[in-house]
């Protein structure tokens, strides 16, 4: 009975200590099309073309906070499916010890190779999330689907599914960004920058690990930037 009371006190104290020493850092993802916020089902000008995005989904994993080049904090079990159709997935909050200082955030765009060969996983990695290739095992790192006036496909549709975890089609990319604020970072990804480099009249379907996916994955890793503006 007495030892139970002591454990009870300890739990209370430990909880209050934890509550004091943790802080939340927000990572807010804002998909853009050029200078505009990207909205689904809305047409945007792209040179002579006009494009509309129906689905934008991607994995952010392995989030690290760094100070200069030293790792300050690593998010445990860090796998997040970001889906423009589901707004709450755009905001990530990281619970970190308050003593941690950092100047940089680093994350993977996609899913690492060891997770790719780990069998059935749950949460955001559950294969029911529609981000898994059944006929050539592996996660889809990044999915962009929509319509383009220059696509001569059925319904002018294009589908870019980028993934692959095995050489020569290892398409996991790392993004590192300097962050100014200690409380939050607004991370923009400009889809126009990616689509500007794709000739949608020729390249409208990528649905397996391949050389084209390598090229696009490389470009994709460059479309992320820190936004100075307040969210």
């Amino acid at each position: 009975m007495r030892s139970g009371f002591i454990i009870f006190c300890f739990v209370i104290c430990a909880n209050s200590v934890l509550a004091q020493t943790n802080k939340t850092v927000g990572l807010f993802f804002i998909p853009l099309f050029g200078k505009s916020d990207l909205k689904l089902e809305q047409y945007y000008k792209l040179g002579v073309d006009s494009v509309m995005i129906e689905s934008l989904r991607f994995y952010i994993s392995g989030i690290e906070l760094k100070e200069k080049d030293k790792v300050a904090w690593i998010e445990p079990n860090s796998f997040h499916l970001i889906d423009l159709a589901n707004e709450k997935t755009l905001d990530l909050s990281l619970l970190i010890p308050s003593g941690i200082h950092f100047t940089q955030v680093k994350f993977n765009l996609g899913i690492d190779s060891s997770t790719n060969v780990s069998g059935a996983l749950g949460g955001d990695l559950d294969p029911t999330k529609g981000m898994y290739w059944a006929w050539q095992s592996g996660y889809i790192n990044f999915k962009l689907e929509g319509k383009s006036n220059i696509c001569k496909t059925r319904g002018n549709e294009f589908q870019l599914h980028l993934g692959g975890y095995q050489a020569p089609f290892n398409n996991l990319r790392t993004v590192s960004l300097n962050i100014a604020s200690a409380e939050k970072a607004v991370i923009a990804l400009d889809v126009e920058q990616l689509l500007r480099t794709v000739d949608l009249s020729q390249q409208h379907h990528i649905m397996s690990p391949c050389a084209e996916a390598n090229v696009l994955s490389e470009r994709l890793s460059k479309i992320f930037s820190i936004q100075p503006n307040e969210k």
Partner: protein
Amino acid sequence: MAFKSLEDVVFEVPKNWPKPKYDFTKNPLSGSKIELGRVLFYDPILSKNNMISCASCHSQFTAFTHVDHSLSHGIDDRIGTRNSPALMNLAWHSSYMWDGAVNHLDMQALAPISHPDEMGEKIETVTLKLQRSKQYRSLFFKAFGDSMATGERTLKAMSQFMLTLVSANSKYDSVIRKQAQFTIQEKNGYTLFQKNCASCHAEPLFTNLQFENNGLPVDTTLHDHGRMNITKNKADSLKFKVPTLRNIEFSYPYMHDGRFKRLSDVLKHYTSGIHQSKTLSKALTNKIVLSSNEKVDLTAFLLTLTDRKFLFNPEYSFPKKIISSRPKD
């Protein structure tokens, strides 16, 4: 997540077999999970029209393949492009499918479930159908301590049942364990097997688990280049995963496209039908010569790989008591 079943099952590795590749620590076997996996395996609820189950193309008495069908059959009488593989000793594999497209046993079922010529269903819809079934809610609760069917749980339960499909009780195994003896003919066949076949069909699994080009000319209606479709590497052209020879007596027709109906056709291919190409297996560059008597002896040995305990094990059969309710839509 911390739920632990009270009826944990230990996976038994047959004596002198290699260590399984499957990581059981990530999916520890339990009686109720195996049972759930077994029900799912036999339940056509996995297919779009609720007509085709795993067992439709993988029936126990033919070593979990589709006897007499050269190519797999799916919903609406659709026909696939490959012969359904026999299922056994899957815990020792680290890639699945004839071309190794699938990298883990847990993910294997996703391929036939989603293929339009097989079950034509989405795993998202499968889990919704399972969530609507009172019976499955109860089975998931027993297995996972939570009645919610997720993709992860569904696939892990199916893996558990498939992992239990171990064939290690053929006459060959008894001879190796010194509990039986080969006839003179079988013994001669074993010697011929070791000399001519064992480099690819390595004991005790009777497959080296590798991809090889075994000299079959390309079927001009299927144009299937096997492993190359996955790796996009020309060096893998016409390579297919080496199948096990265990229970070969019952797993006909043979080859990735089921082109040979009889074992005699297979032996004829290896002795006089090898099609030369750049990626031909090194083991086949020297002609295999077998007299007609030797072919008979080799066949006698191959028949010692039949495992009746496996083919008729009641723990692998249709779970009669369980499947009764169907979703009403």
